[in-house]
C-alpha cells in the first residue's frame, strides 16, 4: 500500500495571524513538503493543477521535475491533471519527459477540474467535460503506446504521422488514475482501461464514495481486468494531529472555520462525523483510516491532505513527522496483515516494466516454430 500527501496549492491567509504567504513562499513550501514526505518515508507526493488564484500550481511537471531532482524514492503524481483543457499531446510529452528525468517515479491522476471558467480560458466548453475527458484520454493512451499516430477527433486538430517524444521510459507509459467525485462515466472509463480509480472522498460521506468505488470495481471485473477486489483504488484523507486530541481540535478549529471549501458552514464536529476529516491524536487517525478499508475494500493508495487553509509550513512539516513516525508505519502493518494475497499493490514503473517483459516473453514462447 502506498501512502502520501496531495496538495491543492492554495495560498490562503492564516486566520490565526492574518498573514498570507507570497506565491513564491507557497511554491517553496510545497517543495519542502514533498522533500519532507520522502524523508519521513512516505511514498507519494501529488500536486493539483489550477489556473487561477489563489492557487499556484499551474505547471505541475516543472514543480515535479524540480522535486524529482532532489529525491530518490518518492513517486511524483498529480491531483489532478486536467485531461479536459490540456492538450493531450502536451500531456504525453511533458509526463514522458518527467518520467525519464525521474527514473520512472511518475504517475498521473486525470481529472476534469472544478473551476468552470478554466474551460473557456482554454478554448473549451464545460458542457463537453465528459466527452473531452473520454476523447483526450483515448488519444493520450495512443500517443504513449503507438510510435506513429494518425488521429482525428472532435476537439483537437487532427494528427497525421505524429510521434510524441520522448517515448515513454522503457516503452512503459506512466500508470494512470482517474479521479472523479460524482461522475459514474469516469469510474466506467477507469474500469474499461483497467486503470486506477481515485476518489477524493475528503469532502464526501462514505455512502457516496462507496457508490462510485463499487461501480468501478464491478465494471473493472466486467471488462476482464481481474476480480472486483483486485481493482486499483485510491482514497483521500484529511487529518490534523497532535499528541492530545483536544490540542489538535483547539489548534485546527480556526483553520477549519475559515477554510475556503467548507468554512462558515458546518461545525468541525459535524464535518468530522460526515466526512473522513479526522482531527485528533495519531491513534484516532490510524483507527479512522482503517475504517476506509471496511467501507471500500482493500485499496492501494492513501493520500492525505495536510497543507491547506493557511496552515503554516512549520505546522505542516510537524504533521508529516507524525505521519511518518507514528501513523503510516502502523497503517502499513495493519493494512498488509488484512490484505489477501490476490489483491495487488498499486502498479509502479518497475512492476509495469516487469509485466510488459513477461508478456513479451510469453508472446515469444507462444509463437509457432517455423
Amino acid at each position, binding site marked *: 500500500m502506498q501512502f502520501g500527501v496531495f496538495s491543492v496549492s492554495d495560498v490562503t491567509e492564516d486566520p490565526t495571524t492574518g498573514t498570507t504567504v507570497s506565491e513564491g513562499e507557497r511554491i517553496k513550501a510545497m517543495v519542502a513538503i514533498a522533500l519532507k514526505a520522502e524523508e519521513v518515508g512516505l511514498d507519494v507526493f501529488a500536486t493539483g493543477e489550477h489556473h487561477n488564484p489563489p492557487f499556484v500550481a499551474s505547471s505541475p511537471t516543472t514543480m515535479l521535475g524540480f522535486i524529482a531532482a532532489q529525491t530518490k524514492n518518492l513517486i511524483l503524481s498529480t491531483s489532478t491533471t486536467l485531461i479536459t483543457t490540456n492538450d493531450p499531446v502536451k500531456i504525453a510529452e511533458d509526463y514522458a519527459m518527467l518520467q525519464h528525468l525521474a527514473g520512472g517515479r511518475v504517475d498521473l491522476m486525470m481529472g476534469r477540474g472544478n473551476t468552470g471558467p478554466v474551460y473557456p480560458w482554454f478554448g473549451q466548453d464545460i458542457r463537453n467535460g465528459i466527452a473531452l475527458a473520454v476523447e483526450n484520454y483515448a488519444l493520450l493512451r495512443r500517443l504513449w503506446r503507438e510510435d506513429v499516430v494518425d488521429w482525428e477527433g472532435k476537439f483537437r486538430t487532427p494528427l497525421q504521422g505524429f510521434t510524441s517524444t520522448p517515448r515513454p521510459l522503457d516503452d512503459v507509459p506512466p500508470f494512470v488514475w482517474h479521479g472523479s467525485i460524482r461522475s*459514474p462515466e469516469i469510474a*466506467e472509463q477507469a474500469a474499461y482501461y483497467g486503470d486506477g480509480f481515485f476518489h477524493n472522498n475528503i469532502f464526501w460521506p462514505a455512502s457516496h464514495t462507496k457508490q*462510485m468505488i463499487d461501480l468501478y470495481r464491478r465494471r473493472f471485473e466486467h471488462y476482464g481486468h481481474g476480480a472486483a477486489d483486485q481493482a486499483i483504488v485510491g482514497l483521500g484523507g484529511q487529518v490534523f494531529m497532535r499528541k492530545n486530541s483536544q490540542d489538535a481540535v483547539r489548534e485546527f478549529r480556526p483553520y477549519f472555520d475559515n477554510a475556503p471549501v467548507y468554512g462558515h458552514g458546518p461545525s468541525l464536529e459535524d464535518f468530522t462525523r460526515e466526512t473522513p476529516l479526522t482531527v485528533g491524536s495519531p491513534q484516532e487517525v490510524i483507527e479512522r483510516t482503517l475504517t476506509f478499508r471496511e467501507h471500500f475494500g482493500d485499496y492501494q493508495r492513501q493520500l492525505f491532505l495536510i497543507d491547506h487553509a493557511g496552515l503554516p509550513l512549520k505546522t505542516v512539516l510537524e504533521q508529516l513527522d507524525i505521519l511518518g513516525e507514528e501513523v503510516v508505519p502502523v497503517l502499513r502493518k495493519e493494512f498488509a496483515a488484512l490484505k489477501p494475497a490476490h489483491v495487488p499493490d498499486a502498479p509502479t514503473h518497475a512492476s509495469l516494466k516487469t509485466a510488459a517483459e513477461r508478456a513479451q516473453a510469453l508472446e515469444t514462447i507462444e509463437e509457432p516454430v517455423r
Partner: protein
Amino acid sequence: MSTPSERVIAVVTAGLTTPSSSRLLADQLAAAVHDELSTRGVASRTEVIEVRDHAHDLTNNLLTGFPSANLEKVLTTVTTADALIVVSPTFSASYSGLFKMFFDVLDDQALAGKPVLLGATGGTERHSLVLDYALRPLFAYLKAIPVPTGVYAASTDWGPNAATLRPRITQAAAELVATLHHDNPTKPDPFENPTPFENLLNS
C-alpha cells in the same frame, strides 16, 4: 413503507413561524388531496417537510456540496414521492430564499416528470401572481409538472374570504390527483446501469 397501491404525497412548506399560514395552507391542500384520493379508493400517505427545520443543513449543503445524512433522507422523500405539494410565503415579490434553497440543492433532474401543486401565502391578495410569475417558472425549469390551478392564500382568506379559498383548494387537489393515474417514470440508475464505455467513446 408504502404498499404498492399507496400514493405518497410529499409536502414542502417554507413558512418561518410556528405555526405558519404556509403550513396551514399546506395542511389543507394535503387533506384535500388525501380526500380526493380516498373517494377514488386510493390509499395515500402524506410526508410533511418544514424547510425551516433544515435551514442549517441546507446552508451547509450549499457550502460543502453534499447533504448531511438527515437532509439526504428528506431529499429522498421528496424525489421518490408520487406528487408534491409546495407552499412558500411571499417575500420581496417572490418565493422565500429558504424555499428556493431547498430546490437549489436538488439535482436539476430530480423532479423531472413529478406532478406538483403550487401554493403560496402572503399578507395581501396583491401578491397572488407570485404563483405564476415565480413558482411556476421554477418548476417548469425543473421539468416538474405543475397543475394548472395554484392556490394563493392571503390573510383575509383565513377569515372573511375563506369561502372563496375552499373551491380553489378542491380544484387544485383534483387536478393533482388526476395526474396520478400515470405511473411515475422510473429513472435509470447510472450506478446500477452505467453507460457502457464503448458508447461514451463513440458518441
